[in-house]
């Protein structure tokens, strides 16, 4: 496919797909199938990350106590069911790694970018469908390499998901004989997958928009995914380069990060966080985009301040490149650099705040229906605000001196990544499940899942702010070794019990998801009365998406127009005759 798009009103590309099963559902080049493949794979890794978290919380809540089924745990990890300190550091490393690279990123980008972009812009598929297929299938060896760490001598990498050198650069320091190398290879393969995806998303959005789908008529989910893809395109290669240098330090005995050979450990931190900061915006921007679409739909109102929302996304992405040092305030880096980073970090709060106010403005005086997707989207706004506010504390270097590497940071991370990204992901899954599978998820179970998750999640992570201010450090195996932390142990136990409850609260979701796949209520056409182009075709859409290439007449948030009876107007339907002067 070398030409851009098809002209308006032309016969589209939708057609019956009668290829064999393996080309249709396994090695598929159809973006919708690939998005669904990502969905299954990343939900699996979300479960893996969650299980690892439960093991961490067991040790913190009940230090030194044997886990259930003591005899079944491998001796190298938890002899007689008691988590070893070395295994604990491996656990925190793998929890972070799986959640960031194999759960949240693929869920936000692999699933929603793949599934939504061609549909919502009116294209038949991505610009490079075969590359897209590779993007998914590369995740299999990437995930396999990462899981393999659990089965090799010395266990997995144990230097944190941030893999700081020189701890990560010499296997003798952590005892992970092969684990760190496997980690490195896994992330390199992941980076290739991410790269292929980014190239596809960017090219598709630039070149394959349907007639009338101008830039400022794009839904905010697409804007967010577009800017995210640009961030990933430019940031992930830095990570790949840094990891290659780390790998060479380990296996070729180069000296990039090893002081003995003249290397600079601090350079690892700079390179990693130069990637790492845009990375966290990759982890939140698509969630913000999804939230915008869900809130407008659930409030039956246009997004408040669409243009400023777009500029805020661009502003966040722009500023996100020059704040990375705020992860390193305590590293001993040049203090003058530190000041620069403090100022830029405070600035970046502004576009995020603009978005929060605009979401509130969207809901204000809307006709809100509290469906499951809407509940999750509203929770996103509230929880992200809390996470963002704790971020302001950290931006101030003097404050960060105290709270760096404490549970205050852990609270912040989880408020933005779980309270933010994951709630948006849940909302997105409930919302687009009917499009993907032609069935509705059970609404009652959805609300139960939401309520239980929301409550237990806050019980787990809010107290962590308190722990952090109390001086409880991160990644620590046994806090009770410090007298000043002993009084906080009951809080740790409380968090752990809440965490187990949080894990169990995901069961209604798992049940709902799989049950609805087969026995869910058949979805009517456009069940959410949404304006997106994906709802103008049957669910699931046919291969090639549109029988007739749609023409787009207006923006995506025409809800509750006073000059219309219906409270929504899909993008491929013209504005009412009276409104032509106002059309933009």
């Amino acid at each position: 496919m070398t030409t851009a798009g098809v002209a308006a009103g032309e016969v589209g590309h939708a057609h019956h797909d009668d290829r064999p099963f393996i080309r249709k559902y396994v090695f598929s080049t159809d973006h919708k199938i690939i998005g669904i493949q990502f969905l299954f794979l990343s939900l699996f890794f979300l479960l893996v990350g969650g299980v690892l978290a439960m093991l961490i919380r067991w040790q913190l809540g009940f230090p030194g106590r044997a886990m259930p089924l003591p005899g079944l745990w491998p001796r190298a990890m938890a002899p007689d069911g008691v988590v070893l300190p070395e295994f604990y550091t491996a656990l925190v490393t793998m929890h972070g790694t799986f959640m960031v690279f194999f759960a949240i990123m693929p869920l936000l980008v692999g699933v929603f970018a793949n599934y939504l972009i061609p549909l919502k812009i009116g294209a038949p598929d991505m610009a490079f469908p075969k590359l897209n297929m590779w993007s998914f299938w590369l995740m299999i060896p990437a995930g396999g390499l990462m899981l393999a760490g659990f089965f090799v001598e010395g266990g997995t990498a144990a230097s944190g998901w941030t893999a700081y050198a020189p701890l990560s650069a010499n296997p003798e320091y952590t005892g992970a004989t092969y684990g760190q190398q496997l980690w490195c290879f896994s992330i390199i393969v992941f980076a290739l997958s991410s790269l292929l995806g980014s190239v596809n998303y960017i090219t598709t959005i630039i070149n394959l928009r349907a007639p009338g789908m101008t830039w400022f008529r794009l839904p905010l989910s697409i804007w967010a995914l577009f800017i995210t893809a640009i961030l990933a395109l430019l940031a992930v290669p830095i990570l790949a380069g840094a990891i290659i240098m780390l790998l060479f330090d380990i296996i070729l005995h180069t000296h990039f990060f090893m002081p003995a050979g003249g290397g600079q450990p601090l350079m690892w931190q700079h390179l990693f966080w130069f990637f790492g900061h845009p990375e966290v915006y990759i982890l939140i921007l698509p969630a913000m985009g999804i939230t915008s679409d869900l809130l407008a739909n659930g409030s039956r109102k246009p997004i408040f301040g669409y243009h400023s929302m777009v500029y805020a996304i661009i502003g966040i992405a722009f500023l996100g490149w020059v704040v990375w040092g705020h992860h390193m305030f305590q590293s001993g880096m040049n203090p003058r650099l530190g000041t620069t980073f403090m100022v830029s970090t405070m600035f970046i709060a502004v576009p995020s705040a603009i978005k929060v106010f605009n979401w509130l403005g969207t809901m204000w005086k809307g006709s809100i229906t509290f469906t499951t997707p809407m509940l999750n989207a509203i929770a996103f706004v509230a929880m992200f605000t809390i996470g963002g506010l704790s971020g302001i504390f950290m931006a101030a270097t003097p404050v960060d001196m105290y709270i760096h590497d404490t549970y205050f940071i852990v609270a912040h991370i989880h408020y933005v990544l779980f309270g933010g990204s994951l709630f948006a992901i849940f909302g997105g899954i409930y919302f687009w499940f009917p499009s993907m599978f032609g069935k509705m998820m059970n609404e009652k179970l959805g609300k139960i899942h939401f309520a239980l998750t929301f409550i237990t999640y806050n019980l787990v992570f809010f107290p962590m702010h308190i722990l952090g201010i109390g001086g409880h450090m991160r990644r620590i195996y046994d806090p009770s070794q410090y007298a000043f932390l002993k009084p906080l142990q009951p809080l740790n136990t409380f968090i752990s019990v809440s965490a187990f409850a949080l894990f169990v609260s995901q069961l209604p979701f798992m049940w709902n998801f799989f049950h609805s796949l087969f026995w869910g209520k058949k979805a009517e056409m456009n069940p959410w009365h949404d304006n997106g182009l994906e709802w103008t075709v049957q669910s699931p859409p046919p291969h090639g998406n549109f029988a007739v290439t749609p023409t787009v007449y207006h923006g995506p948030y025409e809800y509750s127009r006073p000059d219309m009876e219906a409270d929504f107007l899909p993008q491929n339907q013209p504005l009412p005759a009276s409104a032509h002067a106002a059309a933009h």
Partner: protein
Amino acid sequence: MSHAATHPAAPAEEGLGVYTQKLGMWVFLCSEIMFFTALIGSYIILRWGSSESWPVPQQTLNIPVTAFNTFVLICSSVSMVKAYAAAVHDDQAGLKRWLILTVLLGASFVGVQAYEYTHLIEKGFTPSSGLFGSTFYTMTGFHGFHVSCGVISMAWCTMRAFQGKYAGGKFHGIETIGLYWHFVDLVWIILFTIVYLF
């Protein structure tokens, strides 16, 4: 119903004004800029950030041979762009000739690099030979890897040219792979200067 796929229609909504395959390659090249920034940037940081003196490259590396290799790579860029021009004007014989020359020149570059590496390693200059060794092998190694991938892709393109896949003025594939090839040459222009000549 998919006959529309062969319809060379005008773009639906104007993007950046280039056809999709070329745009995709440029987007990819932007990521490659960042990848080489990580490697070359680290070299710059380690070299000019270190208080110790850096070995004089001329004393370890073979400048004349590498200068010749640089010339070879530049020639391969010329032959590549001549191949592109031939494809545009539907000069199939020219296209095949220039593509074969590009493959040969590219393969020679890799061959000379490989020869340089064996020679250096025999002399005792390895990736673990201090920061100089670490940065030298990583940067030139990954560049060489990119050239090798380019040579393989170019060979595949040449095969397709012989199958007539670019006949009738269908130059998009040639132009697209050409961009990758020129990029690899461009990176080498920078590498040669800052690694070998300083």
